[in-house]
């Protein structure tokens, strides 16, 4: 029995492989002809898209006089002096640490708070539950500027500005979207799974921690990707709520740096490149997750 079935499988495979092979070879050739044109088009467009970065990078190595003369030529040499000055003036390490603290702190809060809320709402089909869901969804529509003034005034009154205040504000501003995303994912996780755990005697928080949260990992990636791009890059909210110079995040510091070194482009460009490069490297390393995170976020 065993032998015959294996033989059958062996007999079947080459046939299948063969037909597939010729088929794909044919289409491949057909496609290749067409695609070299597409690749060239893509290369031209990519170069065009990348050109602003290229200009910034080459000019960041020039002296002030060189930039004044012509911005389109390559620098006469690699002049790292701009970078050392900008690194110092930008207080790069400290600013990056501040940005990192705010971003990571807010992310941790959001992941737990919104996944917990979404879990509760998705496992309760009562009217009250869907009403709460609706109230949370309202948050999606409210633009930040609509509440900016009273929000800052409120947090200022209770002395909750700077880093802790920022984290809580980001939490509140991002909760709606993140809960929404988690809720979508939780609908795909069968209730029977946690019901079985209840029968086994597990309590709600144990189930959330041990079963639900691990299953939500793909959504957590989405939540982290979307929110970290926002928190890391945001200028408006930190500009209103950070009032100690030692706590400036990168966008804030960059803004003051530009004001201080008005039109000293050689320093400004070095600072810009310095800020951009780590993010691009990080993106290339984590590209798979970023792309997946954004795609999943849109489809749900």
């Amino acid at each position, binding site marked *: 029995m065993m032998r015959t079935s294996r033989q059958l499988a062996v007999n079947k495979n080459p046939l299948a492989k063969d037909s597939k092979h010729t088929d794909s070879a044919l289409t491949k050739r057909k*496609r290749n002809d067409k695609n070299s044109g*597409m690749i060239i*088009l*893509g290369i031209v*467009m*990519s170069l065009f*898209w*990348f050109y*602003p*970065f290229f200009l*910034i990078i080459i000019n960041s190595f020039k002296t002030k006089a060189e*930039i004044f003369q*012509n*911005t*389109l030529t390559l620098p006469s040499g690699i002049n790292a002096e701009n970078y050392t000055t900008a690194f110092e003036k930008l207080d790069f390490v400290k600013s990056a640490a501040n940005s990192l603290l705010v971003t990571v702190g807010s992310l941790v809060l959001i992941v*737990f708070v919104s996944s*917990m*809320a979404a*879990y*509760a709402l998705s496992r*309760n089909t009562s009217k009250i*539950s869907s009403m*709460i869901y609706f*109230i*949370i969804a309202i948050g999606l529509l*409210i*633009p930040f*500027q*609509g*509440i*900016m*003034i*009273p929000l800052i*005034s*409120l947090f200022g009154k209770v002395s909750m500005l700077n880093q802790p205040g920022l984290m809580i504000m980001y939490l509140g501003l991002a*909760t*709606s979207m993140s809960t929404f995303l988690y809720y979508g994912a939780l609908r795909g996780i069968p209730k029977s799974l946690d019901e079985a755990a209840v029968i086994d005697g597990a*309590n*709600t*928080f144990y189930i*959330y921690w041990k079963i639900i949260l691990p299953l939500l990992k793909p959504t957590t990636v989405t939540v982290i990707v979307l929110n970290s*791009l926002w928190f890391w*890059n*945001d*200028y*408006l909210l930190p500009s209103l709520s950070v009032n100690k110079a030692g706590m400036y995040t990168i*966008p804030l510091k960059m*803004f003051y740096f530009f004001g201080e070194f008005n039109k000293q*482009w050689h320093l*400004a460009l070095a600072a*810009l490149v310095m800020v951009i490069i780590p993010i691009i490297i990080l*993106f290339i390393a984590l*590209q798979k997750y*970023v*792309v997946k995170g*954004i*795609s*999943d976020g*849109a*489809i749900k």
Partner: protein
Amino acid sequence: MLTNRSKSFWLLLTPAFIALLIVLFIPLMTGTYYSLTDWNGNTVGEFIGFDNYIRAFQDQGFIDSLVFTAKFSVVSVVLINVIALILATLVTQKLGRWTTVFRTVFFMPNLIGGIILGFIWQFIFNKAFESIGDLTSIQFFKGWLDTPETGFWGLVILFVWQMSGYMMLIYISFLNNIPEEILEAANMDGASPMQTFIRIKLPMLMPAFTVTLFLTLSNAFKIYDQNLALTQGGPYNSTQMAAMNIYNEAFSMRNMGFAQSKAIIFLIIIVVISIIQISITRKKEISA
């Protein structure tokens, strides 16, 4: 189980509830009240009814900023989505390893914040364009951020460059979800690539438009950082967007109550536009 009676249900919801309450709902309520007072940030404002709202609609600077924002949003939403669709179509061709390269390059501007993008393009428009102008002696390239028209296009170019890659990713994920058999069937029936795109891909992309239009519209309307770093609203406030007008009224002029009435008007406009847009695209989704 997580019924309304169970303590766990409410415990799980509490943190989210508190966060939303103090960050969104309380400010929304106090803000509505502030907008009816002459509050200046320090003393308690006096109740003045709808005076601020009447004043806001007579404030030419505010009206101009709303018109400018609307124009900017329409132009950039159209451009972003057309370009993003083209990029997505290009990247979803069978390109082998180039797919990743192209996708990375097109998405890259989206990694960078508005302030930094604004400074990058300030350099391009002021310095690089000037060099091109010197080289070619074409007047077109000179003083790009010095006139309202070119300032407008400067902001549009910046924003299109920033957002197209993001929307491209969303279109790609929807394009990849179209079943291969449908496309093959169309191919067998002799449909040209253009016909396939218009007759098959576009209708199947309707759910994508709900998302991409919502994201581009609301992001375009709320834009502030890019505006600040690129033009600062100049020359003479001609490129000032609504968000910046509200910000300056509140934090430079300290007319908090008045600024808040503008903020509420702004909020209502965004909510109404979002609801209309979502209901229209949802309808299209169903019929398609």
